[in-house]
């Protein structure tokens, strides 16, 4: 596009071209510098002379001045939110990584640790970047500090007057002096010792229970003597039950005799199983008598040096 086509009103081939000094393109190139006051006086004069003759360039300058005035009248816009954080992240070479990986939920879950300085250095940097551009999390951070101060400011009551004296009094009372120092620390013992102790306790308990069961008048359901109750005796099948029970008792006696290595059973024991005693109601306790006698016999056999009267005397 030629100058004449651009400006139209003036013909560059006209005889006054020499008076205009410079062409329109040169004027436009220098216009910004001219408005900034950076041109030397000769060039500025050439610019002015050109505009006298060129109305289009004169309008061009007028528009440029107006734009400059408008630009200077309005304040420059503020940097967008998070600009500093992103600039720092860019500077540290971690843009798009640290600053963006911490979201609000993460920040709030780590807020207290962040305040206490209990977060690793890298993570601290990420959290600091987040709170710099997140106003909501920054407010939460301030709230946390406020709450902590408020909670710390709540005083607990002092101990009442005479508190120490009361303790000293209790220490000197006979009841406290007799109190045990500390219960035995079972938890401090190794598990193997505890297991051994438990096993020993079970063995002793079992042995004691067996002895007690021999002396006890109660009848167990699996004991043949359980059939020898008054109710069963009154029923019609009493004789059969008697026979069965006596058979079982005899078997038990044989087993016990064998296990105790007895050579002979006392006569009173053998007499219990005699059919003549079947109809005696109190004989349901006879089994117990039998057991007691047998046990005594076993004890005598095991310790013959004892001169106590044996079951034969019964």
């Amino acid at each position, binding site marked *: 596009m030629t100058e004449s086509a651009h400006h139209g009103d003036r013909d560059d081939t006209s005889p006054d071209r020499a008076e205009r000094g410079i062409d329109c393109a040169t004027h436009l190139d220098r216009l910004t510098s001219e408005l900034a006051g950076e041109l030397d006086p000769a060039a500025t004069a050439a610019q002015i002379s050109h505009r006298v003759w060129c109305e289009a360039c004169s309008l061009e300058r007028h528009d440029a001045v107006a734009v400059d005035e408008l630009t200077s009248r309005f304040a420059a816009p503020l940097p967008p939110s998070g600009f500093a954080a992103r600039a720092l992240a860019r500077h540290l070479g971690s843009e798009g990584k640290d600053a963006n990986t911490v979201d609000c939920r993460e920040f*709030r*879950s*780590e*807020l*207290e*640790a962040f305040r*206490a300085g*209990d977060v690793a250095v890298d993570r601290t940097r990420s959290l600091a970047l987040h709170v710099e551009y997140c106003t909501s999390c920054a407010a*939460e951070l301030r*709230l*946390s500090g*406020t*709450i*902590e101060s*408020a*909670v*710390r400011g*709540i005083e*607990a*009551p*002092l*101990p*009442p007057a005479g*508190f*120490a004296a*009361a*303790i*000293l009094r*209790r*220490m000197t009372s006979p009841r*406290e002096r007799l*109190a045990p*120092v*500390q219960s035995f620390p079972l938890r401090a013992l190794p598990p193997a010792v505890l297991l051994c102790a438990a096993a020993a306790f079970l063995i002793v308990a079992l042995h004691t229970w067996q002895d007690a069961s021999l002396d006890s008048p109660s009848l167990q359901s699996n004991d043949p003597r359980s059939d020898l109750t008054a109710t069963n005796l009154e029923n019609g099948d009493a004789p059969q039950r008697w026979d069965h029970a006596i058979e079982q008792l005899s078997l038990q006696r044989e087993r016990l005799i064998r296990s105790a290595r007895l050579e002979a059973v006392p006569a009173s024991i053998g007499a219990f199983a005699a059919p003549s005693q079947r109809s005696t109601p109190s004989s349901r306790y006879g089994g117990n008598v039998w057991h007691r006698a047998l046990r005594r016999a076993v004890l005598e056999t095991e310790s013959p040096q004892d001169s106590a009267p044996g079951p034969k005397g019964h």
Partner: protein
Amino acid sequence: MVDLPNDTVARARQGDAAAFLEILKAFERPVFQTVYRLVGGRFPNDVEDIAQEIFLKIFRALERFEPDRGVKFSTWVYTFVKNHCFDVLKKKRVATVSLARRTDASDSNAGQIDPAGASPSPVDETLGGELAKHVAKALDDLPEDQRLTFILREYQGLEYHEIAAISDCSEGTVKSRLHRGKEALRHALRRYVR
């Protein structure tokens, strides 16, 4: 946390009454206040008895304190505080649960009876000195481990490793409990502290 010289403890072990008194004077306030903050919200009438029991236990067990192992006497004392208070809370847990339920129920009933807007706003309550109540309630609602950690750290100023020794856990666990406790307090108290 001010600690006692070892010779005081040694004198107390030999039955020196003055040494007992020194120990009591040094620890009666922190022990009492710690007990108050740990169990006072639930059993305010038992705080003094509990604190006395703790001191009696400490004095009975003085023979077992071993300063040569590097354990601070204050740490040892707080171990008794923690164990005894936790025992108390454990024994009375059933009653505590039922009381808490009754309190919740009474609160909900009160909310139904009171006309809307009649209750004071959070700001008014705070200005009226109600913040302490809310703090106590929020502390009381924390799990026991978090509450103990928070009290020892924020009120008694113990170090992480001391709290770890008292709580029989790692320092990391102590930090975790403390931060979770603070987070819970922040959520509970945010409407009262603005």
